[in-house]
């Protein structure tokens, strides 16, 4: 007869494996449920149709176009500010009070619930700045929301560049900025790219802040295109889409989930499947990229 501690050890070895398997089982269950209810709704017409009162005619055209545009603005906001902040904090920041305040602040921003970002945007971007319930407001909001992710991944990437690379560059007469621009940043691109991909995935899945800033739940139009078919191929107002009303994939899904009819739930499952496949693909890409860069770079 084995001692109790030995039995417990065996039990925990198995139990821990079971719980771990259970957690991943839940992920599989979730995907399975979406596939079971939503797969038969996935078709070209589902992607090319606007939403509709009739569940079998409804599609996600305005939703995915909206998601694409919002994510575009999000990245244009988050990447420049985020990378610049990361560079400053790693390469320039003196060890003083201000730096400490900025660092604590970024850590706290990462923990702010997403719906609070929506309230901030509602008060600031919509009623103070007057950007309206638009793609621009949504993009700015999500851009600020993912900013901590970009900053943290930039800093981690820059930290892996060894000091001697900088010293070599400086010794050859390059200025600090030239060293960063031509050596530090290119060598940290892998890590920064990983952070960017994760931010895109996060922004695509965010729902709550966009509801708060008044994203529409029923959109049967597309924002006006900046290019036109005839000369000069640029429409009269190339930036009108920025101020257009919009919806995004998760909000379309939320709208369908909230309806009582089962047929709309099937649409929700199909939209969820599309959303989940995009975010999972992005995250898998980020994970693979990260391990590739870690393996390849041997300083």
């Amino acid at each position, binding site marked *: 007869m084995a001692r109790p501690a030995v039995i417990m050890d065996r039990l925990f070895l198995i139990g821990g494996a079971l719980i771990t398997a259970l957690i991943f089982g839940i992920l599989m269950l979730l995907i399975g449920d979406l596939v079971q209810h939503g797969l038969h709704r996935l078709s070209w017409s589902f992607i090319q149709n606007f939403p509709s009162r009739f569940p079998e005619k409804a599609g996600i055209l305005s939703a995915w176009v909206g998601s694409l545009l919002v994510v575009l603005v999000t990245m244009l906001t988050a990447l420049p500010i985020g990378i610049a902040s990361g560079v400053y904090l790693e390469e320039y920041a003196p060890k003083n009070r201000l730096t400490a305040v900025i660092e604590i602040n970024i850590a706290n921003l990462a923990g702010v619930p997403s719906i609070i970002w929506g309230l901030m945007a509602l008060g600031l971007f919509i*009623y103070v700045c007057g950007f309206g319930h638009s793609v621009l407001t949504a993009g700015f909001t999500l851009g600020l929301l993912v900013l901590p992710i970009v900053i943290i991944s930039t800093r981690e990437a820059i930290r892996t560049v060894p000091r001697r690379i900088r010293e070599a560059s400086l010794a050859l007469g390059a200025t600090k900025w030239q060293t960063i621009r031509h050596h530090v940043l290119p060598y940290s691109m892998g890590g920064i790219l990983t952070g960017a991909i994760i931010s895109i995935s996060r922004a695509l899945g965010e729902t709550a802040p966009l509801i708060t800033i008044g994203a529409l739940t029923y959109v049967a139009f597309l924002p006006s295109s900046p290019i036109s078919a005839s000369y000069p191929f640029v429409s009269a107002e190339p930036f009108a889409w920025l101020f257009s009303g919009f919806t995004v994939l998760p909000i379309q899904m939320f709208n369908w*989930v909230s309806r009582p009819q089962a047929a709309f739930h099937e649409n929700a499952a199909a939209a969820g499947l599309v959303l989940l496949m995009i975010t999972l693909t992005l995250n898998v890409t980020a994970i693979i990229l990260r391990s590739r860069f870690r393996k390849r770079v041997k300083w």
Partner: protein
Amino acid sequence: MNWTGQELLSTAGLDSSAETRVRKLRERAIEALLLMAAGSSVLITIGIVGVLLYESSTFFAHVSVRDFVTDTEWTPLFSDAHFGIAPLVAGTLTTTMIALLVAVPCGVIMAVWLSEYCSAAIREWLKPLLELLAAVPTVVYGYFALLFVTPALKQIFPELPGFNMLSAGIVIGIMIIPYISSISEDALRAVPNSLREAAYALGANRFQTSWQVLVPAAYSGLTAAFVLGISRAVGETMVVAIAAGMQPNLTINPLEPAATITAFIVQVSLGDLPHGSIGYQSIFAAGLVLMLMTLSFNVLGNLMRKKYREVY
């Protein structure tokens, strides 16, 4: 090509001192720009706090803080308006409690198992997979709670209403397991090997070492994981808005539907409230309460995390 320095200056035949001055100026300007970018995060915080305080101050000009805290009804959109935050806080705390009951045991067991029991090769595979679990959009989890977990729970509780806090709480718990287990695992790995070796040398086996030496040693790190998990659960929006219902309900019975602070904000935002109305301002007051709750949990969690880092 970006040659700089004396070589370039001499070939260009420029006055070296003027060129140096321009270059210095440019370096300064770039540094200032980068500082502005980094400082913008402080501005964002000021923006968040400012908006919440400003809009809430107009709210509290109409509603006394006393009513806000003591009234037991939250009906800001009714003609007979009541502004007691208690039902929303009760809903938030109930779903959070259920989430923790699911996530803390699972998260800690997984962390111990990953850090002490499974092989490094398996761990290298499982940790990225855990990240994937954290990447699932919350609205998808909401769908899962309403249309999968609730029907499943009805097998056990036949009386369970379609909207209930139990299924929302369980799904939030599943959502925060990756956070709790990854921070807990970091805490366990931060325990120095000398402690493990000492325990094994005294004849303890893996199970005894894990639970009687490593877990107590990583205690503050584990607490930090829980506290950060709480802060996530409190701020979670879509799962509760979809699966727990949007009716404010002063109860801690998980089998009932109830609105959380976040669900209320969503409900009001879906309608079309005029800017400046009391209903519009009530979402900022609710947001302020939410912000204070999560902020205090975050600060507490980060303090604890710092503390355990300094121990060894």
